[in-house]
C-alpha cells in the first residue's frame, strides 16, 4: 500500500476520474477535512472537560478537607462519592468515544481508504 512515492505525480486527468493519491491531495480533500474536524471536535472538548473535572476533584481533595469529609450515607463520605464518580465518568467517556468513533469516524475513514486504494 505504498501510495506515497510512486503515485505523487499522478494528477487527476481531464475527463477521467482517477483516485487522488498524494498525501497532500488527500489532506486537502473535503472528506479528510471533515474527518479531522470530527475527530478534533470530539476529542479536544472532551479532553478539556475530563482534565478540568479531574483537576477540580484534586483541588477539592487537596484544599477542601471538611467538604470532602461530609457524610452522605452511613460512613460514605462526599470525597468517596466524588472519587467513585471519577471512575464512572472515565468509563462513560470511554464508552462515548467508542460509540462516536465507530459511527462518526470509521465510516469516513473507510470511504477515504476505498477511494485511495482502488
Amino acid at each position: 500500500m505504498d501510495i506515497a512515492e510512486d503515485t505523487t505525480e499522478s494528477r487527476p486527468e481531464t475527463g477521467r476520474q482517477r483516485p487522488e493519491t498524494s498525501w497532500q491531495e488527500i489532506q486537502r480533500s473535503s472528506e479528510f477535512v471533515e474527518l479531522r474536524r470530527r475527530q478534533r471536535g470530539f476529542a479536544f472538548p472532551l479532553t478539556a472537560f475530563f482534565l478540568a473535572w479531574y483537576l477540580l476533584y484534586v483541588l477539592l481533595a487537596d484544599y477542601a478537607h471538611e467538604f470532602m469529609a461530609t457524610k452522605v450515607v452511613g460512613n460514605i463520605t462526599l470525597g468517596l462519592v466524588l472519587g467513585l464518580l471519577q471512575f464512572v465518568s472515565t468509563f462513560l467517556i470511554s464508552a462515548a468515544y467508542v460509540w462516536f468513533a465507530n459511527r462518526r469516524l470509521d465510516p469516513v475513514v473507510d470511504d477515504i481508504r476505498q477511494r485511495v486504494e482502488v
Partner: protein
Amino acid sequence: MDNSNPVVNIGIFAVFVAITLVVVFRVNRGPSSAAGFYTGDNAFTGRQNGVALAGDYLSAAAFLGITGAIALNGYDGFLYSIGFLVAWLVALLLVAELLRNTGRFTMADVLSFRMRQRPVRTAAALSTLAVTFFYLLAQMNGAGGLVALLLGVVDEVGQAVTVSVVGVVMIVYVLIGGMKGTTWVQIIKAVLLIATAFVMAVWILGRYGFNLSALLGDVVRLGGENGEAMLAPGKMYGATDVTRADFLSLGITLVLGTAGLPHVLMRFYTVPDAKEARRSVVWAIGLIGGFLLMTMVLGYGAAALVGSERILGAPGKANSAIPLLAAELGGPALLGLVAAVAFATILAVVAGLTITAAASFAHDIYLNVIKRNARDAGASQLTVARWAVVVIGLVSIAGGIVTNGQNVAFLVALAFAVAASANLPTLLYSLFWRRFTTTGALWSIYGGLATTMTLIVFSPVVSGSPTSIFPSADFAWFPLSNPGIISIPLSFLLGYLGTVLSAERPDAVKHAEMEVRALTGLGAEHATATKGSA
C-alpha cells in the same frame, strides 16, 4: 512474617515461572524479524493487548503500594488510583490510534516522523531510556524488598541471589519470546493479579454483608482517634502548604504521564490497526479501573482487619498490608498466592520495560542514528536488540542489588514526571500542531528531561530531609518532591518557543503524510501474521 511459609511462597512462584516459560517457548521459537521481535508481528487482538496493557501498568507498586497507602492513610492512598485511571483517557482520545497508525516499533518513530531524523530520534530514545531505566530500577529494588518480606530471606546475599534469579528469568522471557512471549507473560500475570484481587475483595466485602459503609465503620473504630480521618483526604498530604502543592503536582503528573510512558506506547504496535488499538485501551480502562476499585476495598479491608499498628510493625511497613491481609483471610495458602503474584508482577513489568528499552536502543539509536538506516544494518539490528536485552537485564540486576535496602519509591513518580514532561508535550505537538518543528521537538524533550532531573536533584528527595537519599547533606532549594507542576508546563512552553523562535519551516509534505496516516491508517504497518495467532 508470621504465618508465612517460604516453601509455599516459592513453590507457587516457581509454578508461575514454569508455566510462563513453557508458554514463551511454545509461542515463539526465536522471532527472526525485527517486526516479530518488537511487536509480535502486530498479531494480537485488541482484547489480548488490553489485558497485557493492564499487566504492564499494574506494577507491584500498584498492588502492594497503593493498598498499603490506603490501609495506612485511608483516602489519600485512594487519590493515586484516580489519577492512575483517568490518565488512560489521554491515551484513548489523543494518542493510541494516531500513534498506532504513524509508528512501527517505538515512540521515537512518531516523534521523528516529520522532523530531522537523527537529532529527534536521539532525543526521543534518550528520554525513552531514562523513563524505562528509572522504572526498571524501582521494580528491581522492589524485588529485593519483597524477598525479605515474603520469603523471609533477610541476609543480603540471599536477596541478591533472588534479584538475580528474577533478572535472569526476565532476560530469558524477552530473548526467547520477544514481544510475543513478553505479551503472553503480561496477559497471564494480569489475569492472575486481577483474579486474586477480586477474590480477596469479594471475601472482605462478604464479611461485611457487602456493605461498604459497615467496612468503613470498622476502619474508623480500629483507627481510634485518627479513624474518621481515614475516610476523607488530608491525612498524608494535608499537613502543610508544601505537601498540598506536592500532591497537586503529583496529581497532574499522574494524569499526563501514562500516555507518555514508552512501554505503554509500544504496546499499541502489537495490534493490527487503529480500531484494535482503541479496543485495547477500552479493555485496559475497564480492567485497570476494576482493579483499582478492588484495591480500595483491599486497602480499607487491611485497615479494618489487620490494623495500622500491625502493618507498621511488619518488615515491609506499608508494603506488608496486602500480605498480612491475605494471611488473615486465607492463611499461608492465600499468602503464598499473593507473594507469588507480587513476584510475577515484577517479572512481567521488568520484561515489558526491557523490551521497550532494547527496541529503542537497537531501532532508534543503532539502526537509525548510528547506521543511518543503511540497508545492510536491518539484519544486525536484531542482534543488537538481543544484546541490549542482556545488557539492560544485567544493569537492572546490578541496580537492584546496589540499591537494595534504600527507599527508591520516588523513581516511579520520577519516571511518570519525565514521561509527562519530555514525552507527552512533544507527542501532542507532533500529532496536532502543524507548525511544530525539529527545534521545538528538541527543546521540549531535552527541556522537559533536564528540568525534571534538575528539580529532583535539588528536591527533598535527594537531600535536606531525614528521608532523603543523602540525609546528612542539604543542597535542596526546590521544595516539592514532584517536579511535574513546573516541568510539564515549562516543556509545553519550550516546545512552543523552540518552534516559533527558529527560522525553520515545518515540512509540509511530511506533515500531510503524517496527518493523513494518523487519521486514516493509510500506509500503516499491518499484521503480517494471521490475526490472533499465538
